[in-house]
Each structure stands twice: as C-alpha cells, then as structure tokens.
C-alpha cells in the first residue's frame, strides 16, 4: 500500500441477524411458500445470503384474502390519525434500524454502503414520516372532500432501490387507507422481509401489509388477481405495457413508473465543475441502475472537448469495488443477467461506430462488475442513444442551439427525467417548459424527496409517486348517489340550467 492509497474500510456485518431461510409474510406471520424456494446472492461475491420462498397462486390468493380481510375488518375502519400513528411508528423503527437495513441492502443489491446509508434508507424513513402526516388530512389530497380508499393494492417493485421503492409504494397506500400485497424483485427480497419484522415490531394489524416473494410470474399472478383494486408497478416499460393490457376493462386503478432515457443538457455557460459532478451523479449513481438516470449527455458543441476531458478525469477517481467499503463509489451490478445486457448494448454501441472509453479500474475476480463507461460520437439513431441500458454507461451527443437540444432531448418514446445545466435562469425556465419529462433537475440531478411528485410522460408510464399527487393515486372521490362517480363532487358546476346539478340535488 502506498502513502496516499485508501485503506480498506468495510462496514461491519456484525449487526445483521439474518436467517438462512425466509418465508412469505402473510396476515402478520411468516409462512412457508408453496413454490420452489430460490437463493438470493450477494452480487459482489456471488455467495448465497439466504433462501427465499416462492409464492405460488394459492399463496397469492391467501395474501390477497388476508389484505381484503384486514381492509374490511380493521384498516378501513381505523381513524386517519390512528393509521398515521402506525406510519410514524414505522418511520421511527426504520430510523432505529437504519444501519442494519443499509448493510443488508448493500449485501443483497450490490450498491455502495455510502448510498444505502446516506440516500436509500434515510429516504425510506422520510417517506413514511411524510405520508404518516397525510393519513388524517385526506380532504386536502386534491380529490374532493371525504375521499375514499380503493381497497387492496397490489404492488410490484424493482431491484434497483429495493427498500426505497417499497416505501414509495406502501407509505401512501396505507396513509390513504388501503391494504397492501407487495412483491419485491426476485434478486432483492431481503430488506422487504426485514421490513416485515419492523411491521411486527410496530404491531401493525395483521394482513394490512403482506409481502410475497418470487419471480415475475408471482408478480403477474398478483396484478391479475381479481381481488385487487389498485396496481402499482415500477419496472420495465415492456412489463408495464403487459400490465396496462391485462387490466384493460377492469376498474383497477393503475400507476406505472417505467423506463427512461433521460437527457442531461449542458449549456456552454454551465457552472462546469458542478456540471461534471452532476453528470457523474446522473449516470454513475447506483451503477446507473436508475430509471431516471441522465444516460444521454447533450453537451453544447463549443464545450464538448473540455467537458469530456474533465469528465474522464473525474471518472478516473471513481472507486469500484467492495460495496460494503465506505470509500466505494461504484458497487456491483445487481445480477449476471443485467451485466449481460449492459455488455451486449455496449458492444453494440462500438459496432455502431460510437467511441468507447472506460475508466481504468481493477475489476474484482468474483461478482458482477462493469467499469464506468462513456461513448462519444453517438448519433441519435444509435441503439445506445435510444435503449435504456440501466448500467454505468453514458452516451454523449452534441448540440448547437437550445432548440436543437430540446428536439434531441425529446426524441425518445420515454419521458421520465431530464437535467439542465446553465447559469442563466431565464434559459433554464424556458428549456424546462419545453422538455417532455416528468422530473427535471436544473443544476442538480437525481434528487428525491417524499414531498416531490415523481413519474413520467409518454412511455415512461403514468401516475405520480411522492407528494400530494402520490397520495391521490391511492384515493377516489367520495361516492355520490347516482350513476356516475368519476367526477369529484366539488367540481360539478352549480348553475340553474345545469341538469347535472339538478340531478345531484335530487
């Protein structure tokens, strides 16, 4: 070791008390799944962490039945303030067990401990704390006075932010008065099951939250179950499409948070050091496993070479390796399958004529790893400029005028996120107006907050998570007498001539 090298600084695993086998969490208790159990591995070492149960159709039925029973018998009858108190308890328990959850998440997912410790788990607690306060204030959610909950929510979440996605789903659902059946991603079930223990500690009534594990087919059975009233899904656009098809003709309310190919636009007057940091944060945060990643860098032609030089210098300082090490910036790719996809698209990028450059870092011999990579000379028709890679791979394009930047940024079926880097406030506002994306970061990137709505335009899905709008996604207007319930009561115009007003008055 040389004088200026970092000594290893791994976070201790001593506070983990993991079991060797995990069952399904149904009706407040862990039960064995009736499908074939599977192993969950540490993607940094490929070592098994635990065995996870698979829920088969009968298990899904049982979980939905438990959620329905809890909805009818307990949760829908509880006062908003009592629902809120349970959510506050959960927020506090997450804070108390934050380090344990962070270590478990890093083990199971492969993301650096500094991210789970400083971003994922704090946001989980914040999400529950935020929505806890909403539970007794639903009249202000924006769907009219005295809104109604939906019933049983089926929630299917991805592997990139396992516990954070769980919080995004469960917190607003419970605050609004729904009960939940949640299926975590196959490769990252562990923290959801630790969360089930937290629910036991919080003494949440049995069946209000049920957590069932398994592969995609378990999720499919769950969202297609006739007993669910709401489907909330975060994941790929192709699965989102399949869900949109399968719920056609039903009255299930749906939120879909799908893929993205976010444009990060750097103008020539940008604060350049912050922009470089933001580009790195935009694409290499969480190994690029981020649906809203800034995976397309649009840089103004006049500063292209300077930006690329600085970006490469910055990328050379990124430390790839043991996710549990507190100095690690780039952790492991979550699965062999995902690594194969990143490799495939990167090789395609080279074949299509883009110029590949990767940071020079030592790749560990076991586990799944991919060095931070950028492609220059990318054109808009290249697959690496169109397809979501979902890895630490940045495609760089150039533009000359703001109009060209906007046209290129919007030239995608996706519409989840975008970034703007400029020192000129009026330009930021004008460009932000023209971008067809649900979340836009100006002179920052990848910021999240429970009070801030998140979700996409176009094929990035519909519905919002976070904020008042994320709460409304789990509510419906008060039931009116008469044939029609879709219109909020307060929205009906009251005029002498209005027949609808007359009917409402009858």
């Amino acid at each position, binding site marked *: 070791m040389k004088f200026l090298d970092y000594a290893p600084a791994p976070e201790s695993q001593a506070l983990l008390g993991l079991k060797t086998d995990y069952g399904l969490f149904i009706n407040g208790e862990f039960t064995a799944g009736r499908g074939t159990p599977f192993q969950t591995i540490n993607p940094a070492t490929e070592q098994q962490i635990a065995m996870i149960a698979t829920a088969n159709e009968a298990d899904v039925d049982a979980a939905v039945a438990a959620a329905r029973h809890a909805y009818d018998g307990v949760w829908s009858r509880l006062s908003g303030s009592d629902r809120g108190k349970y959510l506050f308890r959960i927020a506090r328990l997450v804070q108390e067990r934050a380090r344990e959850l962070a270590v478990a998440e890093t083990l199971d997912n492969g993301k650096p401990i500094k991210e789970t410790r400083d971003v994922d788990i704090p946001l989980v607690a*914040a999400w529950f704390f935020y929505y806890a306060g909403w539970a007794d204030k639903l009249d202000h959610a*924006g*769907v009219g006075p005295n809104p109604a909950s939906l019933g049983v929510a089926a929630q299917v979440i991805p592997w990139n932010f396992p516990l954070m996605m769980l919080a995004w789903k469960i917190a607003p659902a419970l605050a609004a008065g729904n009960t939940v059946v949640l299926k975590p991603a196959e490769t990252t079930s562990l923290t959801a099951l630790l969360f089930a223990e937290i629910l036991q500690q919080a003494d949440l009534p049995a069946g209000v939250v049920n957590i069932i594990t398994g592969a995609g087919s378990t999720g499919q059975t769950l969202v297609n179950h006739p007993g669910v009233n709401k489907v909330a899904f975060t994941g790929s*656009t192709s699965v*989102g*499409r399949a869900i*949109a*098809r399968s719920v*056609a*003709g039903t*009255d299930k309310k749906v939120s*879909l948070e*799908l893929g993205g190919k976010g444009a990060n636009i750097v103008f020539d007057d940008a604060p350049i050091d912050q922009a470089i940091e933001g580009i790195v944060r935009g694409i290499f945060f969480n190994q690029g496993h981020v649906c809203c990643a800034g995976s397309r860098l649009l840089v103004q032609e006049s500063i292209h070479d300077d930006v690329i030089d600085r970006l490469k210098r910055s990328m050379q300082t990124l430390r790839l390796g043991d996710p549990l090490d507190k100095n690690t910036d780039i952790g492991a790719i979550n699965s062999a399958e995902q690594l194969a996809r990143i490799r495939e698209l990167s090789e395609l990028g080279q074949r299509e004529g883009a110029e590949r450059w990767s940071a020079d870092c030592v790749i560990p011999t076991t586990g799944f790893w991919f060095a931070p990579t950028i492609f220059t000379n990318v054109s808009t028709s290249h697959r690496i400029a169109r397809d979501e890679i979902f890895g630490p791979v940045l495609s760089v394009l150039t533009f000359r005028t703001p109009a060209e930047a906007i046209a290129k940024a919007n030239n995608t*079926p996706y*519409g989840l996120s975008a970034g703007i880097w400029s020192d000129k406030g009026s330009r*930021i506002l004008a460009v*932000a107006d023209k971008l067809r*994306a*649900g*979340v*836009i*970061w*100006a*002179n*920052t990137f990848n*910021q999240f*907050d429970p*009070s*801030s*709505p*998140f*979700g996409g*335009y*176009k*094929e990035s*899905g*519909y519905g*919002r998570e976070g*904020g*008042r*709008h994320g709460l409304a996604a789990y509510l419906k*207007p008060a039931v009116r007498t*008469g*044939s*029609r319930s*879709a*219109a*909020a009561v307060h*929205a*009906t*115009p009251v*005029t002498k*001539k*209005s*027949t*609808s007003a007359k*009917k409402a008055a009858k």
Partner: protein
Amino acid sequence: MNRLAIPKTYKLYIGGKFPRSESGRVYEVLSHKGEFLANAAKGSRKDARDAVVAARSALGGWAGATAYNRGQVLYRIAELLEGRRSQFIDEIMSCEGVNAAAASAQVDEAIDRWVWYAGWADKYVQVAGNANPVSGPFFNLSVPEPTGIVAIIAPQSAESLLGLVSAIAPALVAGNTVVVVANESAPLPAISLGEVLATSDVPGGVVNIVTGSPAEIAPWLASHADVNALDLVGAGDLDWVELQISAADTLKRVLPPETGADAAAPALSRILAFTELKTVWHTKAIL
C-alpha cells in the same frame, strides 16, 4: 310560392378545413322519423390519420398559448354558439326527434359548459399544481401540462351536441389537441360545431371532427402511435376493452366509457385526466 331551400353538404372538419372523406364514402343521415336529412362523410382510416397529423401540427401553438388566451378562445366559442342557437336547435330536433324546448335546453347547456370550461384554463394549474417543501436548497414546483393529442369517441346516445362539447372542451382547456369521432346517428350538430370552431379563434387542427362509424375508426386511433390519450366516453357499445388493450402498446392515457344521464358530467377531473404533472427542481445558491 315557397322558395326552394339550399341544403348543406356536411363534410369532415380536419386541420381547419372541411374536406370530404378521402374514401369518397358517405352515409345517409336520417331524421327520427326516417326521413333523409343529409349525406354525411363516412370517415376512413386515412381521414383519422390525417386528423392526427393536423392535431400534432397544431399542438405546439395551442399548448404554448397563454392560459388567458386559451380561456378567451374557448369563451369565444360560446359567444358564437349563442348566435347560432336556432341552427343547432333545428338540427338537434331533426336528428334526435326532440321538441323545441328540449333542443333549446340542450343548446343552452352546451353553451354554458363551454363557459364553465373556458374559465378553468387559467386556474386548473393553480388548483392541481404544487410548490413542494423538499429537504434541501431547492425551489421545487409541480405543474400540470397537456398530455398531447387526445382521441375521443363522442357520446353516441341522446344529446349529440352536449355530449360532443362535454367530451372535447375539457381536453382543450389544458392545451391538448383533439381528434373526435362524432355521434354516428346524429352527426349534423358536430359538423355545424366545426363551422363554429372554424369561424371562432380556435386555430385549425386544434379540434378535428370525423364523422362515420366509431366501430371502424376507433381501432385506428387507439393503436395510432402519435395519439397520446384516448377518451372512450362514448365507446360503451364498441369492443372498448380491445381498444384499451391496443392503446396499451404506447401506454396511452385512457378514460373508460360512461353511460347514463351523467355521462361526461363537467368535472375538473376530466381536465386533469389529460394532463401530465411536471416537477422541476431549481437549485438555490447557498448564501
């Protein structure tokens, strides 16, 4: 001696113009008593696609207009409708077979509905948007924006004018552009509304009206990749689940069919159904 009347040729309304169907087809519109009223254009797949092209090219201008301006343009439609009351009353009476009082009440309500929705244009953003108190040095604002092109199957049952207005007005408020398939059996008020739109300040292409068979045209609109949203309010008698399934290919926003007297009742939720919430994080300097 009675003067010989000059009957009107009823055509489509696409891109601010009144073309015949490119297919050359027409269908007979009959009165309630079975008398011949007119040959209406029987719109085709190509007409629907032309309408989508017109709606796309009009979108930037309409969505980019100020809210005050959109509100005034929508209000202007009510003004012009008021001046053409008798024409619409006649058409409704002959198409729907209702008496003058009922036709007159329908026109009144259609006019009032334009006024109600026009007033929302510069308010819905305030009601549905939000300033968000995030934990950090950011100014964080959420604002609803138009979804894009909304394809609408207008209500097919009674009250042809009111049904049409109730379906298209809310989509227009936010700045969407519209392709609407009119009431098949009572299309005359729809085309006359097109004449009102053409002579008001609504830019060409913002509203495109196709007459003909909803069962034939709707699948082309539901599967059209450049359509962003689908309002099936009047599609109750069609195979609307199939339409919804085909709309899922490009993840269109879909509103389901509505039936009964309260179908397409005026509501803020109808405006918001065709909006997308945009959240922008602006960095604050640390002083």
